[in-house]
């Protein structure tokens, strides 16, 4: 900057903008903004809710093969409560086949992986007290490493018969589900980690453990509600 600039002829002071004009403009723009946002929200709300319903249903039917219908229940301290009765809480999805027999129960669990949370939907079989299938709902793991959890057939075998038996009190798992180092799985409640994706595999183990620890005791206690809901009384 040179001195010429500083000794330049004094400029006339800028016209004062009336306070009202500023308030009117910001107020008016906020009003327009509010109207547009509320309109967009109201218009898209039913479409988004339907999208979410379809997405959950597809995920449940994929993790529980052979299922054609499902009923949602909320996990509460007092037991299972059918969803939609105003009770808030974690949802589980009981899935039924064409003859209305209980095919499996989809439960969700979250574990922290390498790049963030991994959310997984598990197929819990109440008869064998084990996890018999899984589907990752959301993850941000590294492509080529963490996403092997969805594709590696050896790893997926872990989740075909993963032991989740309850203790004598029915309050927790006898053996918590854990991920062990690649190649060292010796018990049915262990998950053999993918070599090179240990942290992602750990996340899967944590997700399975939290899901089963939280949902299995309530499901076993209230199993009658899930099977009785279809009027056959047995599955």
């Amino acid at each position, binding site marked *: 900057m040179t001195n010429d600039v500083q000794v330049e002829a004094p400029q006339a002071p800028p016209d004062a*903008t009336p306070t009202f004009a500023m308030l009117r*403009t910001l107020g008016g*723009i906020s009003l327009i*903004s509010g109207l*547009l946002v509320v309109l967009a929200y109201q218009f898209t709300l039913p*479409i*988004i809710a339907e*999208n979410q319903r379809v*997405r959950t249903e597809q995920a449940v039917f994929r993790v529980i093969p052979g299922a054609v219908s499902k009923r949602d229940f909320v996990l509460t301290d007092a037991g299972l409560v059918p969803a939609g009765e105003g009770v808030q809480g974690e949802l589980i999805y009981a899935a039924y086949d064409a003859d209305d027999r209980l095919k499996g129960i989809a439960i969700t669990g979250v574990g922290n992986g390498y790049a963030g949370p991994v959310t997984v939907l598990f197929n819990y079989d109440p008869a064998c007290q084990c996890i018999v299938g899984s589907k990752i709902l959301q993850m941000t793991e590294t492509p*080529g490493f963490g996403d092997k959890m969805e594709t590696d057939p050896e790893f997926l075998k872990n989740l075909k018969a993963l032991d989740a038996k309850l203790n004598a009190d029915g309050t927790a798992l006898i053996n918590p589900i854990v991920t062990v180092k690649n190649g060292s799985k010796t018990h049915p409640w262990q998950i053999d980690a993918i070599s090179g994706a240990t942290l992602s595999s750990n996340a899967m183990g944590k997700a399975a453990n939290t899901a089963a620890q939280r949902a299995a005791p309530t499901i076993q206690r209230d199993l009658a509600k899930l099977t009785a809901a279809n009027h056959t009384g047995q599955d």
Partner: protein
Amino acid sequence: MAELPKHQEDLSLDTFVRGLWKENPVFVMLLGMCPTLAVSNSAINAISMGLATTFVLAGSGALISWLRNWIPKQVRIASYIVIIATFVTIVDYAIQAISLDLYAALGAFIQLIVVNCIILGRAEAYASQQRLVPTLVNSLGIGAGFTIALFALGSVREILGSGTLFGLHLFGAGFQPWVVMVLPPGGFFVLGAWLLLFNWIKQRGERRADAPTGVPANAR
């Protein structure tokens, strides 16, 4: 940054076209790098992000241009940001209504359109001074330029990094994906390669224009 237009611009083909090439927001102005690098890991993400940004550009540009004589300059930044945020919220809901998978793939970068400097830059440099129709046309041109640039990155990264384009497998089972291309560093590599190419073409064109007749244009 492009030179500020000082007078009312007449609508011409150039109003639209210069956003594609001469004032391309990514390859020439290097604006909006955050979504450019972050969501160009697949062609569909890139195009969706480009279209979402174009909608916000056009919508906010039109409203700002329409209201330009009522916005005192003391409150202009606040006004522009509220207007931009409004259109971003609309786009956010629209994408959720179109596809939840797409919404999950784009993640926080939809909301981050609010602070995309292409949009605020256009509002300040163009929409606040020009009439409605030229603003709309110019915004669409800039948006198209942004979308094309994102697609240029997204398609290359998806082909090299996943061996697919729009999710369709291009190569046989023997193809080993170059995974780093869909990871953040790949964004920088591909952007760098495109910038190299564009600047080379531009410089070659300038040399050809400057070269005296009779001398081969590409003589070094």
